[in-house]
């Protein structure tokens, strides 16, 4: 099981936060849209996964994304990323 946590600070997100968990070896992908901060667990079968979180920060605000869980490899390049860019699309890679 893996846990993905997204925390928006300094306001509310102007656009929905999009989460994609892409199994690189098949089409069994997960796509979720959220209106604000969230923490959610995912029980995924073994495989290679790319996780992408994209969205828009509140004016002057920031978003912190963290990925954790029972990975056999990763998450790469880091388990946590904080962005204050107006628009973002941050990827993580891990093997379960």
């Amino acid at each position, binding site marked *: 099981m893996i846990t993905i946590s997204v*925390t*928006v*600070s*300094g*306001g*509310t*997100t*102007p*656009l*929905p936060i*999009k989460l*994609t968990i*892409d199994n*690189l070896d098949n089409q069994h992908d997960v796509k979720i849209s959220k*209106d*604000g*901060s969230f923490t959610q667990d995912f029980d995924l079968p073994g495989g*290679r996964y*790319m996780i*992408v979180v*994209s969205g*828009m*920060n*509140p*004016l*002057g*605000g*920031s978003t912190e994304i963290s990925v954790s869980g029972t990975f056999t*490899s990763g998450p*790469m*390049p*880091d388990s946590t*990323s904080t*962005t*204050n*860019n*107006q*628009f*973002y*699309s*941050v*990827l993580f*890679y891990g093997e379960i």
Partner: protein
Amino acid sequence: MKKQITIVIAILMSAGLYAQTGKTSLKQINENSKSGNFKDIFSSFYRLATENLAGDNKYIEINTTLFALRSNANPDLLKDYNYKKAKFSRNFKFDFKVSLDSTFKYSGFTGGFTIALINDRDKTLANFTGTELDSKFTTNMSGALLTVQTNLTTTIVSNTTLSQENKSVALDSLNQAVKYILDPGKTNLTGSTNPYVSQVLAQLNPLIAAQNSTAIDGTPITDRDGLIKDIDDLQTQYYNLFDSKALWTVSADGSADTDGKFNKASFGTIFLKGNKTAWNEIDIRAKLAYSDTVATGSLPRLNFNGTAGINFKLFKAEHEKSFFEAKVALEYSSILRNAMATEDKDKFLGNAEIRIRLMDDLWIPLIVKYDVENANFLGFLNISYNFGGFKKT
């Protein structure tokens, strides 16, 4: 009393100066798009005036919101679910001003607060879900980027010649390239030393061209540059709409003399509401002021002043920043208590105020008043500097 005031000011100054280390890139867009009229009332979290510190009459002033102080103590308040709930503290602004003489000895104190009862201009709570911006960013840009990210990630992690560490470095470079590409301020991407910038663009641009979309000015979008510019134009346009929304504030302030005795107080209210394109703005103000400053014994006076007018923004340039503003208003003032024999108890004025923006936060206002009853003109030049808004990130 004086000692207590000094201690309070010192604490507030420390908190305020610490808090001013926040990041400002997005805030600057916000600040630039505001009118001088709005800035004077409620836009700044901090206004630290250091005017005249070298002269005989010095003063130190702090101007902040309750939220800025609370979030310094508890950064969790900045998280969106807490931020939304903290409506009162985000809209409660207060200020203190301590005057000092030539030897830096206390010579007076002023304090007050402002509450925004209606503040529809808070851009940090913007929601653009379902708009064209949502479509252009979420579907067109992020959707295409996701395809490219999948392709390049698969290539990196499938490369058996790369160590785990090098794969991690490559994925980090890919993230940096995407960050660069999503920055509307980056217009010349060919100079990037990150090899993934060109690799992402090589795949991204054909995907964007295949979308056959058009920008808000009707021009076809054929690549990343066109799409990110359109996204930037849309977000600027949407944020500018906030500048014309309703703002209603009530405020109170008081001041003390050199002995620490309060001798002035006032209560006021301001209402602003512009049209959708923010080219003009209704401006209504009222103030009830009490003062006891007449030198010849105690003669407390009570004054009422009300104005109703329209503020016009003219000569707006890129990012809708106005460079010239004009305000016309009718003013009524009345001395409700202890009018002097030589004074008019009631006065009607026709006012005109012109503001010229010299720099982002530097305005020169020229105010001309016409006394309707006595047919007199009174004009004076006033220069003010707004140090800009602050919000901790």
